[in-house]
């Protein structure tokens, strides 16, 4: 539909809303409802666009979604169907195609917002089913700012219709959407998902959109769409400043980029489309250059694959007791800390592996991928051997991810490659198969070739196939190191594919492992390894990579190298008055490292409980008292709690080492109630309670009523804490309390939050009102 060679350009329509407002629709009314009340008005706008020369018109369905229409008495399905039929009738007897127009739902998606991905998908599905049923010829997803929301809409469109899909997003002049999506990320992700055309609409006038469309063109080979506003609106009156002829003149520049699909957005009218068409008739479209870049991305960052790109390996429970514990406790904060540390250490991509016996890997993958995306702006590598977990991770990953991994086994290729293709991911192929890991480079290379052929056969582009030639432990199989390096070279030279390699394994079992690991890494990079999977927190490893990038010419003028090393003056250890400092003082001063150090020393002569009950708890009590007296304030209270946390970590490790019973004083379940996203207070309570030795199960924010009830029934905590900040969400707190009581589990409930009072807490059936975090600890002491 979008590459009709007989016609150089396809013309879309212009604004619908602007036209309806001019015809007298009051601002703030849902334009979609006019299909019920004034269908002739809507049809007349369509006809004027057709007369002006539009080849594709958008049905009046922009906001005809279940969320925006709730309370209007009309369903999305009937509204969409009617609007599409209205447009079809207007276009009857012409060549003009009708697009089901899908705009943003009007709510921000998780993790920044509260609308779930699945809910968004269902809202869009209702529109798609109705639109396709009413005879829409294509689906136009437009004015989107959130790549996650676009993905929900595209998946709904693909899974409920066979219609062509055109997607345009709305950018600010800085080159990002309001939610931070970049043009490159949009192109990579949507080309992967298999849309038919993509581009920009709304936001700015044509001239200001030019740099953004130029960027898009360098990341995709799909047909490009441009549907700008009529310039900028007057802030006070809402009128746009570009006249039709000027608009058309500015649009001419897009032809040079090879843009072939054009229309108008806010402020444009049929006159603009007529002027555009007249102007473009004499303009020969420029030759579309092939895209210049390829790579992977998250919504906020595209990582071009040219040169060394570091994949961080730390989000993985294998051999890490603390990480395993975090997975069992659903301690997302710990996992997020690992993600942030790696980002700050310079990782370009994060490997995410949450496979652990006894853990629901599918649910955990979905949750962890969602959480990481809210905090860290790095592309992800979904690492699992479970196809369901891979799909769950990919579905939730708002960008172009990497799947780690497939191998040469036919069954694995047949199962996993279709998932990779569907979500437009890249894939890592391990050079092993039914017979195990081959002993020679030639055999591994042969498997790499087979994997490549299978991927191509599934429609996965060559550039998205990465090969892992497998690192074996040199202390066990010494001859294999050379074979791995040789295979890496063959993959690079003969197949031209990217090489992935987890290098740390090489040195297992040897003393001073980093020496071997670093040396192997450098040799492998010389052979063609460009996607090393490493621990980016190991400075020596990252230093080696920084040096390599200078020698390979990738780090032009050694700019990054200089930045990295120029400032590393010999470090002067921070002056600490350690002589006089004891553990309670370190807690009170909020010194984390000092607390951990002191605790480790104390453990040589005291047992764990003595330290907890004799030193830590009294110190925390003292801090609490000073907080009460307003000698210190909330940030200091939290700093002390965090410092005590470091001490507790050392104690927990010590207990785990000798297999002793935990020091937990009992379970407390915490949640910020449904509809509320302000959870900073709840997080403070969590830290304080943990430091008094309670095991806190943190359900997070915006937690559905039944989820809290279910967790209470399963975990049976003696105390539950609920928080809500806004008056609008206190009602959902009351509902949550009723649901907890209905489980029949006998527990006490404490509530807190800015708008609550002791009176109100009683009214809604809570047992305690905690005015601050300090008081929640007092309540816990009384209850447990």
């Amino acid at each position, binding site marked *: 539909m979008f590459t009709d060679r007989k016609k150089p350009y396809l013309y879309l329509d212009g604004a619908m809303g602007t036209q309806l407002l001019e015809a007298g629709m009051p601002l703030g009314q849902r334009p979609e409802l006019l299909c019920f009340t004034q269908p002739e008005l809507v049809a007349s706008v369509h006809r004027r666009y057709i007369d002006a020369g539009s080849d594709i018109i958008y049905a009046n369905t922009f906001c005809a979604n279940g969320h925006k229409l709730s309370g209007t008495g009309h369903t999305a399905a009937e509204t969409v169907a009617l609007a599409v039929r209205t447009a079809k009738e207007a276009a009857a007897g012409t060549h003009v195609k009708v697009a089901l127009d899908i705009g943003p739902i009007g709510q921000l998606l998780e993790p920044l917002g509260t609308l779930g991905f699945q809910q968004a998908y269902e809202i869009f599905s209702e529109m798609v089913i109705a639109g396709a049923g009413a005879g829409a010829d294509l689906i136009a997803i437009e004015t989107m700012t959130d790549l996650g929301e676009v993905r929900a809409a595209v998946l709904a469109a693909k899974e409920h219709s066979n219609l062509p899909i055109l997607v345009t997003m709305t950018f600010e002049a800085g080159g990002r959407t309001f939610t931070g999506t970049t043009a490159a990320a949009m192109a990579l992700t949507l080309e992967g998902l298999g849309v038919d055309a993509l581009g920009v609409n709304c936001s700015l006038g044509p001239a200001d959109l030019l740099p953004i469309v130029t960027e898009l063109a360098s990341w995709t080979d799909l047909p490009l769409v441009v549907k700008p506003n009529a310039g900028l609106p007057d802030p006070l009156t809402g009128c746009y400043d570009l006249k039709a002829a000027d608009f058309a003149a500015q649009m001419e520049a897009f032809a040079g980029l090879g843009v072939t699909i054009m229309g108008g957005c806010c402020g444009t009218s049929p006159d603009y489309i007529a002027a555009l068409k007249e102007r473009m008739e004499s303009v020969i479209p420029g030759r579309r250059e092939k895209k210049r870049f390829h790579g992977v991305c998250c919504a906020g960052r595209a990582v071009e694959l040219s040169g060394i790109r570091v994949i961080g390996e730390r989000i993985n429970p294998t051999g890490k007791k603390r990480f395993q514990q975090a997975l069992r406790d659903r301690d997302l904060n710990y996992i997020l800390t690992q993600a*942030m540390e790696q980002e700050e250490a310079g990782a370009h991509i994060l490997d995410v592996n949450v496979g652990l016996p006894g853990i629901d890997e599918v649910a955990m993958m979905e949750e962890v991928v969602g959480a990481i995306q809210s905090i860290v702006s790095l592309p992800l590598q979904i690492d699992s051997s479970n196809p369901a977990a891979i799909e769950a991770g990919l579905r939730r990953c708002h960008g172009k991810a990497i799947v780690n991994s497939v191998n040469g086994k036919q069954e694995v290729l047949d199962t996993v490659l279709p998932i990779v293709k569907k979500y437009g991911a890249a894939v890592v192929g391990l050079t092993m198969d039914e017979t195990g890991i081959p002993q020679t480079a030639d055999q591994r290379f042969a498997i790499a070739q087979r994997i490549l052929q299978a991927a191509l056969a599934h429609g996965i582009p060559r550039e998205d196939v990465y090969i892992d030639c497998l690192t074996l432990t040199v202390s066990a199989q010494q001859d294999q190191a050379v074979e791995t390096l040789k295979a890496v070279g063959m993959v690079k030279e003969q197949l031209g594919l990217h090489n992935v390699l987890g290098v740390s394994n090489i040195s297992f079992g040897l003393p001073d492992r980093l020496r071997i690991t670093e040396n192997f890494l450098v040799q492998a990079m010389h052979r063609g390894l460009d996607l090393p999977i490493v621990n980016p927190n190991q400075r020596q490893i990252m230093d080696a990579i920084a040096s390599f990038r200078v020698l390979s010419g990738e780090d032009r003028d050694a700019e990054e190298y200089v930045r990295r090393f120029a400032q590393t003056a010999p470090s002067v250890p921070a002056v600490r008055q350690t002589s006089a400092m004891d553990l309670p003082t370190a807690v009170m001063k909020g010194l984390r490292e000092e607390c951990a150090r002191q605790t480790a020393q104390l453990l040589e002569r005291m047992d764990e409980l003595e330290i907890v009950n004799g030193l830590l708890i009294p110190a925390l009590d003292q801090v609490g008292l000073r907080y009460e007296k307003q000698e210190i304030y909330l*940030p200091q209270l939290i700093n002390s709690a965090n410092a005590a946390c470091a001490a507790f970590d050392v104690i927990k490790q010590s207990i785990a080492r000798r297999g002793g019973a935990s020091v937990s004083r009992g379970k407390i379940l915490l949640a910020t109630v449904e509809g509320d996203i302000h959870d900073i207070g709840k997080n403070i309570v969590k830290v304080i309670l943990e430091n008094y030795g309670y095991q806190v199960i943190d359900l997070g924010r915006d937690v559905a009523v039944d989820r809290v009830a279910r967790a209470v029934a399963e975990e049976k905590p003696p105390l539950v804490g609920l928080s809500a900040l806004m008056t609008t969400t206190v009602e959902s707190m009351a509902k949550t309390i009723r649901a907890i009581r209905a489980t029949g589990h006998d527990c006490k409930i404490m509530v807190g939050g800015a708008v609550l009072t002791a009176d109100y807490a009683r009214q809604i059936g809570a047992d305690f009102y905690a005015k601050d975090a300090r008081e929640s600890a007092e309540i816990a002491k009384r209850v447990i």
Partner: protein
Amino acid sequence: MERRLTAIDRAEALGYLGCPGGDAPEELRAQVEAACDLLFRTARPRALVRIFERNDRALPGTAFRLEGEDIMAHLSGCHRVVVMAATLGRETEELLLRFQVKDLAMAVVLDACASAAIESVCNDLEEELRLGLAEEGLCLTGRYSPGYGDFPLSAQSMLCDLLDSQRRMGLTLTPSGLMLPRKSVTALLGVSHTLSSRTRRGCTGCPGYDTCIIRKGGRSCVY
């Protein structure tokens, strides 16, 4: 439209942290300074403004109606209404989220400073509008937001629609009426020919007295 963050009232931020007055410990002051530094580097405030004629409770040409007595009192004598929305943007939202994971103590300080920062953005905008209107011989009231007095929080959604705030600056509402990004404000201001001499009612007469977050921050919504 894009705005600049020109100032953050430290005393206001300290008030949100439960430390009103000038007796904040040095350590806390330093943290507030560090947080302000971060916000000045991160925040990308945006704002939208539109002026509508007013006819009693109606804004002609729109589907909006003013509800409640307090907003009517606020707008008494005003023939026009300014609808405004301002946000610190998603950059600040992300900063707050990151620090909740990375350093909770700093997150608390940042949260307080960000609340003071969005007020400052609104103050700047309001002052600009006031100066502009004064050239035409017109006066402007202070800001009045949904949730103040008996002006219902549900009005928020219509104000966002009037400004097309999602499309034009990325400001959305959750079903429970919370604004996202969180550090955002919507408000109405009245335009009149003469400066009204309304009496300040003070907080004690307000139905929201017990639970008011503005009051907890040591401020008042009544001008």
